[in-house]
Each structure stands twice: as structure tokens, then as C-alpha cells.
């Protein structure tokens, strides 16, 4: 079985084409093939496949990518709610 998908239209992934230098790091580190680089620029192929691990943003030397990273884990989010913490990782 290939290609699980989770909910559409929720990923916090943002990409600035203007800032992109086309180095290709995002394409390398993304575990879900969200990015592809062609003609010196990266491009988002399928944003809904993003699981917000944050690898692309951490490894983008141009700072062209932002994402609110974290672990998509219900238990962690519930504990976060209970402890009154707004931050999720």
C-alpha cells in the first residue's frame, strides 16, 4: 500500500519562491515528496501530504520555508491542552 493521506487543507507549510535558491535540500529531506526542484526553484507538489515534521524548514539555508513543526500525536496534543501549554512539538 502506498501513499497514505491525512486531512486536506490543514498543513501550516509556507514557501516563498522569491527567497528560494533551488539548492534542493527540501526535496532531499522531505519524507513525503512534497517538494520538487526544477529550473533553479523548488515548488510544492502536494501540500496536503505535509506532516509538518519541519525538516525542510530547518534545512533550508535560504529561510524560504516555514512550517509550524510538531508531532501529529493525539496523546501529546491532549497533554498539551491539559497542561495549558499552547505550544506543540
Amino acid at each position, binding site marked *: *500500500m502506498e501513499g*497514505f493521506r491525512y486531512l486536506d487543507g*490543514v498543513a501550516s507549510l509556507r514557501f516563498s519562491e522569491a527567497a528560494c535558491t533551488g539548492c534542493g535540500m527540501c526535496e532531499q529531506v522531505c519524507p*513525503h515528496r512534497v517538494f520538487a526542484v526544477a529550473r533553479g526553484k523548488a515548488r510544492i507538489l502536494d501540500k496536503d501530504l505535509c506532516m509538518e515534521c519541519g525538516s525542510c524548514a*530547518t534545512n533550508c539555508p535560504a529561510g524560504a520555508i516555514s512550517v509550524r513543526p*510538531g508531532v*501529529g500525536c493525539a496523546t501529546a496534543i491532549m497533554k498539551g491542552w491539559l497542561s495549558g501549554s499552547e505550544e506543540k512539538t
Partner: protein
Amino acid sequence: MRALFRKVVGNPPMPDQDPCSSGPVRERGERPGGNASFCCGDSKPSRVETPFHDRFVDGMVDTPAGPVPRARVTIGARDVLGRWSMRWGMGRNRYRVAPGLYAVGDPDQLSGILVTANYKMTFDALRRELTGLNVWILVLDTRGVNVWCAAGKGTFGTEEVVRRVKAAMLEEVVSHRRLILPQLGGPGVSAHQVTKGCGFQVVYGPVHARDIKAFLAAGMRATPRMRQVLFPLRERLALAPVELVGLFKPAGWLSLVLFLLAGIGPGFFSIGAAWHRGLAAAEVLAGGILGGAVLTPVLLPWLPGRAFSAKGALAGGILAVCSAALYRDALGAFHALALLLALPVISSFVAMNFTGATPFTSPSGVEKEMRQALPVQAALTALAGIFWVGGAFLR
């Protein structure tokens, strides 16, 4: 402090291969916003000495920076047993390898450096794939947590890579300036910051250790296939035992409450009813857990919908209908309704918690799903409870 590798029996006295990391690893700041305590594993730094050394170290290799222990590439019965213990959630926080540099085969100044985590299951998964290779392994102190989870917490992170590179004096051990990191270390490691911090370049290798050989043979190039994370049945099943074990304790407490509630009836409280009705309720709870933690992961690609709560409810629904049909003579209408509501709801909730074990759910998505599903689950639980307790009065 000098006790590093003292446990290695039958080998010459082994000096500290890594003077900077002798003794406990210094306290380090968690990544801001990190929720290390919310996820798997504790956060105590790893000791430099671990009880597993004598099992996988088979000698020392001399380097300009001093002797380095050589790790075997064979996996023994003990390693297999250890892996199974981990799969069942036994002693996970203690299953660690001492951080630092290791040799595989006969590496020299030109040999590649593979960076990994100090969870022993991770270390084993890597070394078993290195037969016939001469490479270095740099083990980070991820506090006994696997690469991806540790990267999410930041313990498999830029700072730790830089610190370990310096502590192992890699500049003297090798003549090149390249580290091969597992791709899933990416969330915690900023490749360009590592270069800035210690002069070593980061090359991201494949997701799975089993692709390392092909990756190296292709001149450190990963195919798109090697870079993609899938979630095959084998991996989904491997997670089921540890999920079940994790649910055992909360389920036990909940069962206790159910047994107490079960005694409530027309005669105020009945021990007999507490036993019989309590047992039935505990069975429903067990069925729900089975639906959410086993059936849902197994049937994941075939259960319709995207939300795990929906998939879990459906898996639980199948079990509920089967149980209701099986016990149709023993169940009154109220009890049947309670069963048909409770089992799918429990399964739905448990399945929703399985999101944390999957490699494709985003926190934004899980939060959205939970905001929608939790109120429904709570309402249906209350309704099931009313039918169940009410059923005792209306028999």
C-alpha cells in the same frame, strides 16, 4: 570516569576514546517549545558505559585520536530478544548504547561517517546492514530514543552533532569533512548550521538503514524511493504490541470503575451484578481497544475516510455488530444499544491516539480532528453509559 568499556571482557585495557564525553553528558537545554516529556522516552542523558558493550564490541581500532571500539555487524540472539522486549514495551528507556565513535570493519581516514541515535534498536538496525563495509559510526546521545522521534525533540539535533564531532576529534580521525546523516534526522538537524559549527558537511542518506549499501555504492545518491516514508502492514503490525501494553494500565483503572458502576441497580448495589455486568463492560472495553489499536492499524488503507476517529469507529462498529449478534439472546435492548455505542467510541478514541505512531499525520490535522471528534466521543460515551446503567433498572 575511567570506567569506559570496563565491561568488555577479554580485551586489552581500553582507554577513554573520547575524553570530552567521559562521565555523564552535560545537561543541555531542550529545544524551545519542545515537549520532550509528552512523547516517548525519558530525557535523562545516557551513561557512557552501557551493559550492552561486551555484546557488540569485538576489539579496538587505532586512530590518530586514540583507539575506537569496533562494533560487530552480526546480530545475536540477545539482540533479537532485546528487540522483542522493546516491541512489547519492556525497559525501553534503558535500551541504550554509549554515545561516541565506533568503527565497523577496518575504516581509515577516507571512510564514511554514519551518524545515528543511541537507542540500541536503532544502532542494531544500522550495524546489521554494514556487512563488508569499512565505515565509522558516530552515535549521538538521543537519550535512548530513535532518530526520527529524537529529531522531533531536538536531541538528534544540530548542537549534539557538532558537540559529538568535536568530542570524537573527527577532524583527526578522517581527512574528509563529510557526515552521512539518516534522512529522518532532518527535523532536528540544520545541515548548514552543522557546517558552520564544526566544518563538516551533512549529506542526508536514505530513510532506512537497509538502503545504506545501495546509497554508498551509488556515490551517496539516494533514489526517490529511498527518500520516501511508507507505512506498510509489517510496520503497522510491529507497533500493535507496544500500543496494547501502553493501554493496559489505563484500561485496568477504567475497568475498576466499570465494575463499581456495574453493581448499581434496583437493589442499590449488588456484588453479583458488579461481577457479571462488570465483566461484560470490561469485555466491551477490551473489544474497543482491539478495534482501535490492532484492527484499525491493520486495516488502515482499506478503512474509508481520512480521520482516524472515523476509521476507528468503523473498525469498532464491525466488532460491535458481531458481538451484538453473538450475544443477542443475552442482551436486552438497552444493553445492546450500550454495546453498539460504547465499543465503536472506545475504538475511535484509541485509533485517534494511534496518530502519534504513524509517519504521515500532521499536528495541525490531528488537532483539527480532535476538536471535532472529542465532543462526539464524549457525548456518545455518556449516552452509552445511560443505556448501560439504565438497563440494570429496566430488565
